[in-house]
């Protein structure tokens, strides 16, 4: 441990605000969430931030740390500290409620907008649907299924920044997993919802979402899958019908 203290700049305010510097003692294996918690408990109890599980399961503690969106609970200070400084800000591309807490409503509404929810045609009285684990659809769905909705990809996406109505990587990734769910009955509706310039066809394939996803999911690949599926459905039709 070279320095005993960290200089931590933390965003205070809402959309308008400023960075305020705090001095936080360094500890071995300290995470960025530990730093924020220390500030809130010992230095300034008015600091607002969001967390729940502290172990990378819930996806609620994502913030912009030294300019990059990350889970603060799974980021050790030693991995990213620049000298003895840290800069902690709320996630980009989302309205700030206060300090480090953003309003996630638009992010989750876009999941709904992308028909990012399952609807089947079986009831509890039917037998279980049998989906072969090795089938192509199941494998494609598996690749994107572990998303926990932390918003890191959404905050890292420059297309979201340029086109506020763009659905974003998380919602489109979810749409792609459902497009590969053989039990789902809303395929045409979903394809219509995620087609075009507010949907998958606006993606620049820049890959920031894939680069930064803490779960190592590749939304860029999911979006590429959607682009091809939907463009073909628009021109030639699909097994669910024509768009």
């Amino acid at each position, binding site marked *: 441990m070279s320095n005993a203290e960290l200089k931590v700049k933390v965003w205070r305010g809402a959309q308008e605000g400023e960075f305020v510097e705090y001095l936080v003692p360094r500890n071995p294996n300290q995470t960025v969430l530990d730093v924020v918690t220390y500030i809130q408990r010992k230095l300034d109890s008015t600091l607002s931030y969001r967390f729940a599980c502290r172990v990378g399961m819930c996806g609620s503690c994502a913030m912009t740390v030294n300019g990059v969106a990350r889970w603060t609970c799974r980021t050790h200070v030693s991995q990213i500290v620049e000298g003895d400084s840290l800069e902690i800000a709320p996630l980009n591309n989302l309205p700030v409620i206060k300090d480090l807490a953003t309003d996630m409503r638009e992010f989750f509404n876009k999941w709904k907008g992308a028909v990012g929810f399952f609807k089947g045609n079986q009831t509890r009285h039917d037998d279980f649907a049998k989906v072969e684990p090795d089938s192509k659809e199941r494998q494609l769905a598996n690749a994107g299924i572990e998303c926990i909705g932390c918003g890191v990809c959404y905050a890292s996406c420059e297309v979201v920044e*340029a086109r506020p109505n763009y659905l974003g990587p998380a919602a489109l990734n979810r749409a792609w997993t459902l497009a590969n769910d053989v039990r789902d009955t809303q395929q045409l509706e979903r394809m219509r919802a995620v*087609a075009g*310039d*507010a*949907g998958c*066809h606006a993606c620049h394939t820049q890959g920031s979402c894939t680069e930064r996803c803490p779960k190592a999911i590749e939304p860029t690949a999911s979006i590429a899958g959607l682009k091809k599926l939907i*463009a073909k459905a*628009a*021109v030639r039709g699909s097994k669910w019908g024509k768009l």
Partner: protein
Amino acid sequence: MSSVLQAKLWYAQRISAMVLGICVAIHLLIIFYAIRDGLSAQEILGRTQGNIGFAIFYEIFVIACFVHAPIGVANILQETFPKSGMVRPVSILLALLILVLGTVAVFGVFTGGA
């Protein structure tokens, strides 16, 4: 613009990009071959005048540009100046310019400007 039309445009741009990739490669090879003994207008016209294969190849090149470039420019304009209202007129103008000027050029070297 409907999202289905946007999806179709994306597909058209994708297909035209494939055509352009092949056309650019052939075009570059032709350039390397053509300039091996120096370059003059007479030499070029000597090869291209009355050569229907040449004219067809370059007209395909022009059509691929006509499809590809305006869609891309429209996307860039839409993201850079979302409220300007100039996306459609500028991209249509660009498409027409590429098609007309490109075809005139192909016609010119095919007939030798006669």
